[in-house]
């Protein structure tokens, strides 16, 4: 009997089905914890799912490549999800048009700041070129950031880690920081957190105010587009 089970395990552990299922359940469990915590930004569902999966992969001696055979079906949806960002952007189009000037200028300034500050600081403290390339697009939503990194020759999976950490940091920092600065305009606050901390920042903005959330969503989509154009251009220059 134990031998039968171990031979089934050998078969299943190499099959895409097992690792696809593990990915979905790891996420569902992490999402449940996040909800239970009252959507505390510190209890981040992505990082919990990732830690759980890595623990299982290490414990079973499974290679990442084997895991990815199954997980790729989920990963593939990043492309269509990026395209789908057009829908909330279109839904808020009237607002975008009304505030086109402050948004355009803040978008340009914020986008350049996000790229230059992260790459500049990491360079000054001594990161290597691959790490710098993988950091450049850390402020934008993962599917776009990973595609940009792939384009300029960084490590997309490293970028995914940086993006998620940036999102968590932005979501934690935004409220105390802007309260200390006495900024009350929820449009400006939302726009800044969506630009700097993409979807995780946007989710946080929606908890504070609906207006902030809407502006965060717009900033996330716009910064995704601007960064996707800027980073490869800058990378070609250096």
């Amino acid at each position, binding site marked *: 009997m134990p031998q039968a089970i171990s031979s089934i395990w050998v078969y299943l552990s190499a099959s895409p089905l097992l690792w696809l299922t593990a990915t979905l359940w790891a*996420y569902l469990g992490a999402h449940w914890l996040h909800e239970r915590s009252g959507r505390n930004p510190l209890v981040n569902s*992505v990082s919990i*799912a990732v830690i759980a999966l890595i623990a299982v*992969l290490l414990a079973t001696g499974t290679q990442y490549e084997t*895991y*990815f055979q199954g*997980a790729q079906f989920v990963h593939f*949806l*990043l*492309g269509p*999800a*990026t*395209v*789908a*960002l*057009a*829908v*909330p*952007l279109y839904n808020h189009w009237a607002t975008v048009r009304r505030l086109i*000037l*402050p948004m355009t200028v*803040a978008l340009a*300034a*914020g986008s350049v700041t996000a790229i230059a*500050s*992260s790459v500049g600081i*990491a360079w000054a403290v001594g*990161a290597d070129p691959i*790490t710098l390339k993988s950091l450049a697009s*850390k402020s934008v939503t*993962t*599917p*776009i950031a*990973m*595609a940009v990194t792939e*384009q300029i020759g960084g490590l997309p*999976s490293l970028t*995914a*880690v940086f993006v*998620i950490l940036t999102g968590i*940091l*932005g979501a934690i920092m*935004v409220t105390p920081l*802007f309260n200390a600065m006495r*900024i*009350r*305009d*929820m*449009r*400006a606050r939302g726009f*800044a957190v969506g630009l*700097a*901390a993409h979807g*995780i920042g946007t989710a946080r903005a929606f908890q504070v105010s609906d207006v902030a959330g809407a502006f965060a969503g717009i900033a996330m989509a716009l910064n*995704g*587009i601007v960064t*996707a154009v800027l980073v*490869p*251009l800058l*990378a070609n220059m250096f």
Partner: protein
Amino acid sequence: MIAAFSLLVLCQLIGEFLVRLARVPVPGPVVGLLLLLGFLAWRGRVPEAVQSTSRGLLTHLSLLFVPAGTGVMLHMHRLRTEWLPVIAALVAGTAITLIVTVLVFLAVSRLTGASIAARK
């Protein structure tokens, strides 16, 4: 839902085709996003199926980051040796970006008088 999903992947496919044709260094899905935005503007509304399919994809966007995030196990060595520049860049870079963006937004909306409407 299948029709809406087909529309999304079609936009992405055309996007991938265009960036390769024009040899511009922009991710294909981003061009796909712009194509879908153009399509919605041309239609003048968002079809119900497209609305619900995109909401479905975007509400569980976090799930889609998990396979790539798990890839961190391949980079443990790099993170161990470069944790200082990485932490510095992420923490300081995010704070600076938040501050610059919010101040520029406020300054320009004050200059253009757009701030009066939704001040509260």
